[in-house]
């Protein structure tokens, strides 16, 4: 008897663990509840990953705008896993959100989720990355391929039109790595005199950026420029080059314009980084959705301008 | 006379060892044939040849007149030979029936599925035949060791065995369980089944066997009808010399009380009280499962106790923990050598000093010189046979392994030494040596608590005997009043206290 009782107590402990977790997240909970009732507008935001500062900033931008407009924002995190994304979006639909902002992990893999939302009659907006199918009311993004091209053009100019460059790639198989790489390679391959001497993956990761570029520096006595698919990797590469004393011979171009990278540009260590304005993307996503839900027309493509952050 | 087994001129070499040297071994059909010999005499090798695990280098084997050459246990089984290993070979989580028919389950639906109903019925029939009351559908791990042993016999029968080899089947059985096993063996014999019986316990041999073969150093020394032999003859054939008495009891002056246990209770034992005096050997007897091992584990602080008191030299010991008990002067030789005492992948030296380390090197830093000295001292003192201190302990014989464990305890210079089945599975020579060591220790004033399931050993060695039954003390007997019958009576039927 005593033991059975203890088991029940343990279960109660688990339960109270939840109560705590639930309690600390009242905002989200009430959002779900109120969605059921028809209080203020509720918008679901599915983010590809909150393990990356870029998307954290995107989320913050969206949250800020939502707060300003008096809209509840329910955020789910796919952790770069398309299967989890599909589940998360299913859950948002289940919560009865009024509109879905999706930042897909992959443009193909998100299609069934978009269609499911369509069937449920929930308008879908994609941010940063598009969907290759389903009905999307509007796509709010800046173009990764264009960004890669922009970076390439800047880099080629900066090294004087010819030379040896290195490409640090993102996680193989992710769309950001594909698109940015495609843009970069489109330009470089069309430019005679510029040679990609090494193209290695550093998995969007600063540590690997450091290690991988250290090795490339070793292998290649002559490097004029580096382009990395994100800022994390270029900052790692920058550190490797500075340690090796070759930073001043190389032009570094990153992507995303995260705070660290912008600071590095201001310090003159980093030549440039492609700014996508994630906060603006998130903010525009929410305001576009609200505008649409209020019955007004919105454009089907809302470009967020890319800019190159340079000194 | 029909022979179920005839072996002639068997030789078997292993690298560096002539394990079997011109062995001949005949077993009459429908008899119980005992095989005895010290550890390393070649019994296991011989049995492996018969049961198909090994192939002889030379010599012939005939089974019921048919010349055979087994290349696998399956072939031997096919010829009606089954072996029950000393260490039980069961799949713990599976049911009794599944264990019996493992690999030969009755099939249903064209062989695709196991017919569990038939499986259980057939198992039930086998167990009934042995008069073993066990539910064939329960996991075998829920059975007692003795019951598992009976299941092993049932398994052997399920192969339609005509020859069943039993290797030390009673080593973990109580007297009463042994009696049940003997009844089954007699029934088997009555059904015309041959039993080859390996044991270190001579009294069992006289009780159950028709003929005895003695092996020594890989040779057959003699094969005779049991009725024509006596204990001394067998022992001297085994060891190649005469041993006056197996249990040399030395008269020791018994001093003051050093340990007093009062009302000790824990998982598996209740309200156990006894005292131990300086130089005294306290035997603890009882059936397996009577709570003897549990009690000493509680006393040593290995398992938790939930009541009672322990007084050592008049000082109460609260919430015992192993390391603390060892510091206070306790030392312990556990029951299951392989699982509870040995570090098989470590050296003789590391095994010997392991309990001593924290005492020898208070700073936590090891000085190898010191370690070597201590080790050498005890290797010498206990005449442990090992090529070097660095030898892996798994390469030593059982008797020498046990001596290392006893040395580990002696190195602690204990005032109380607890030994749980110290001579189980150890050959006669080593056994006598261990008894001598125990006697010497008592003479030096160490209080000794010894658990043993072997009644002659308990009777021969102890000054006083505590008999346990169902977790409680059933009787305390003085050596002058104790007899096998009395102990058995107390252990089996209780009798108050």
């Amino acid at each position, binding site marked *: 008897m005593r033991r059975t009782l203890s088991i029940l107590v343990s279960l109660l402990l688990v339960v109270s663990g939840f109560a705590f977790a639930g309690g600390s997240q009242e905002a989200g909970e009430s959002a779900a509840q109120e969605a059921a009732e028809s209080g203020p507008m509720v918008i679901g935001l599915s983010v590809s990953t909150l393990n990356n500062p870029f998307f954290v900033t995107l989320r913050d931008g969206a949250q800020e705008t939502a707060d300003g407009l008096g809209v509840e924002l329910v955020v789910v995190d796919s952790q770069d896993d398309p299967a989890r994304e599909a589940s998360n979006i299913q859950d948002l639909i289940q919560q009865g959100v009024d509109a879905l902002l999706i930042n897909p992990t992959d443009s193909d893999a998100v299609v069934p989720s978009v269609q499911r939302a369509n069937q449920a009659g929930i308008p879908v907006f994609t941010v940063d990355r598009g969907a290759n199918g389903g009905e999307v009311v509007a796509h709010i993004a800046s173009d990764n391929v264009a960004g890669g091209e922009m970076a390439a053009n800047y880099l080629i100019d900066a090294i004087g039109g010819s030379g040896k460059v290195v490409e640090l790639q993102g996680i193989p198989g992710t769309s950001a790595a594909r698109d940015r790489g495609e843009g970069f390679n489109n330009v470089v391959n069309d430019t005679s005199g510029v040679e990609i001497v090494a193209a290695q993956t550093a998995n969007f990761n600063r540590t690997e950026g450091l290690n991988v570029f250290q090795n490339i520096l070793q292998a290649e006595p002559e490097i004029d420029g580096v382009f990395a698919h994100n800022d994390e990797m270029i900052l790692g590469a920058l*550190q490797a080059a500075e340690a090796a004393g070759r930073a001043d011979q190389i032009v570094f171009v990153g992507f995303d314009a995260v705070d*660290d990278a912008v600071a590095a540009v201001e310090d003159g260590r980093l030549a440039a980084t492609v700014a996508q304005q994630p906060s603006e993307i998130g903010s525009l996503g929410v305001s576009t959705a609200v505008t649409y839900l209020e019955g007004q027309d919105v454009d089907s493509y809302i470009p967020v301008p890319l800019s190159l952050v340079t000194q | 006379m029909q022979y179920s087994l005839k072996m002639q001129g068997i030789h078997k070499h292993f690298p560096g060892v002539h394990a079997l040297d011109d062995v001949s071994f005949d077993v009459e059909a429908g008899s119980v044939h005992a095989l005895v010999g010290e550890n390393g005499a070649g019994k296991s090798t011989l049995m492996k040849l018969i049961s198909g695990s090994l192939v002889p280098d030379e010599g012939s084997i005939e089974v019921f007149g048919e010349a055979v050459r087994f290349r696998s246990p399956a072939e031997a089984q096919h010829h009606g030979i089954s072996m029950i290993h000393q260490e039980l070979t069961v799949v713990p989580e599976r049911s009794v029936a599944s264990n019996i028919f493992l690999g030969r389950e009755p099939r249903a639906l064209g062989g695709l599925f196991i017919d569990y109903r038939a499986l259980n019925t057939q198992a039930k029939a086998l167990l009934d035949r042995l008069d073993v009351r066990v539910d064939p559908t329960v996991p075998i791990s829920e059975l007692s060791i003795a019951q598992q042993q009976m299941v092993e016999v049932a398994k052997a029968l399920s192969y339609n065995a005509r020859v069943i080899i039993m290797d030390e089947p009673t080593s973990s059985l109580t007297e009463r369980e042994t009696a049940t096993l003997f009844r089954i063996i007699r029934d088997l014999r009555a059904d015309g089944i041959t039993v080859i019986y390996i044991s270190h316990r001579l009294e069992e041999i006289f009780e159950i066997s028709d003929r005895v073969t003695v092996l020594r150093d890989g040779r057959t020394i003699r094969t005779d009808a049991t009725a024509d032999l006596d204990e001394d003859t067998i022992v001297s054939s085994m060891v190649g010399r005469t041993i006056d008495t197996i249990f040399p009891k030395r008269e020791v002056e018994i001093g003051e009380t050093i340990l007093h246990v009062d009302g000790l209770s824990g998982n598996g034992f209740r309200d156990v009280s006894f005292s131990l005096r300086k130089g005294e050997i306290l035997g603890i007897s009882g059936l397996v499962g009577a709570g003897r091992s549990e009690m000493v584990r509680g006393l040593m602080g290995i398992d938790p106790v939930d009541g009672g008191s322990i007084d050592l030299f008049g000082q109460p010991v609260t919430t015992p923990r192993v390391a603390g008990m060892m510091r206070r002067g306790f030392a312990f030789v556990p029951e299951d050598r392989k699982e509870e*005492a040995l570090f098989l*992948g470590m050296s003789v030296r590391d095994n010997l000093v392991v309990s001593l380390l*924290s005492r020898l090197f208070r700073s936590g*830093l090891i000085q190898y010189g010191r370690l070597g000295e201590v080790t050498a001292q005890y290797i010498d003192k206990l005449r442990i046979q090992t090529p070097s201190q660095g030898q892996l302990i798994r390469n030593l014989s059982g008797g020498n392994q046990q001596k290392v464990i006893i040395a580990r305890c002696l190195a602690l210079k204990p005032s109380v030494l607890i030994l749980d089945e110290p001579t189980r599975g150890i050959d006669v020579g080593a056994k006598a040596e261990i008894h001598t060591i125990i006697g010497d220790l008592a003479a030096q004033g160490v209080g000794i608590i010894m658990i043993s399931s072997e009644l002659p050993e308990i009777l021969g060695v102890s000054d006083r005997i505590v008999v346990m039954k169902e977790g409680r003390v059933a009787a305390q007997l003085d050596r002058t009043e104790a007899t096998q019958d009395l102990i058995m009576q107390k252990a089996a039927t209780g009798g108050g206290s």
Partner: protein
Amino acid sequence: MTTTFDLGALFRRFGLLIAIAVLVFGLALLSPQFLAVQNVLNLLLQATVNAIIAAGMTLVILTAGIDLSVGSVLALTAVITADVLQAGVPVVLAVVIGLGAGAVTGLVNGLLITLGRIPPFIATLGMMTLARGLALSYAQGRPITGLPDRFLLVGTSSMLGIPTPIWITAVVYGAGMFVLRRTVLGRYIYAIGNSSRAARFTGIPVRSATVAVYVISGALAALAGMILTARLNSAQPIMGLQYELNAIAAVVVGGAALSGGEGGLGGTFLGALLMAIIANAINILNISPFVAQVLQGSVILAALLLHGLSRRNQ
């Protein structure tokens, strides 16, 4: 018993070393850069983080345990360290706090395993998720950057031309070998790995020794995290993903048995070195990233098969 020259024994003892030598020789032929002093230093530098984590993992695996939480613990302690550094805590104190945080997570692991009696695989698997979540919550998913220069020296300075992290690794391995060979705790670790039941019966403080190895493992993960943080001038909550598997791979390639009681730090270091050599070679030779993982997996398999083969011939 023969005293003749035994090639098999030589190979058993130095197999991994020989394999590495052959690999290095081959790589040196393929690229003259490979054996340049600077590259060798780079390679060692890149091996340090994995090697330090693997050192702790070796102790854990010797007790027949496993620690899957090291990658997450590395991230958690890194963000904590970086945060207190930014708050102006002196460098030495911050390092102590970071190492302490790692030790605390190790302590929790150890207690779950000893008192909670959860198998190590499961306990540390739970801790892996939990610590990662804590790291992300703590840093709110963002890197913490802008650390004091004095702290960065941990990762960026050199002594006698050799980068500091390599010195730190050498100290860790020296201390680890000393613990394993010359201390009572070392004997206990091997004994527990051999048979934890026998260890309990012989009065070895099994629980505290087990807790100790997980504490060491947690603290070493924290140390590795600091080296990374200092090299990058940034602590990120997603650092150390899958580092646990790299460390385990280094330990088993180094010849330790996951069943415990067998292996040592020398082997682990060679294992970590081998893995760093492969990663380095992939960059130096500009091998396609798509092939990289296939290559790494195959080399691990080959090393283990070789190891098993040489042992079986015993």
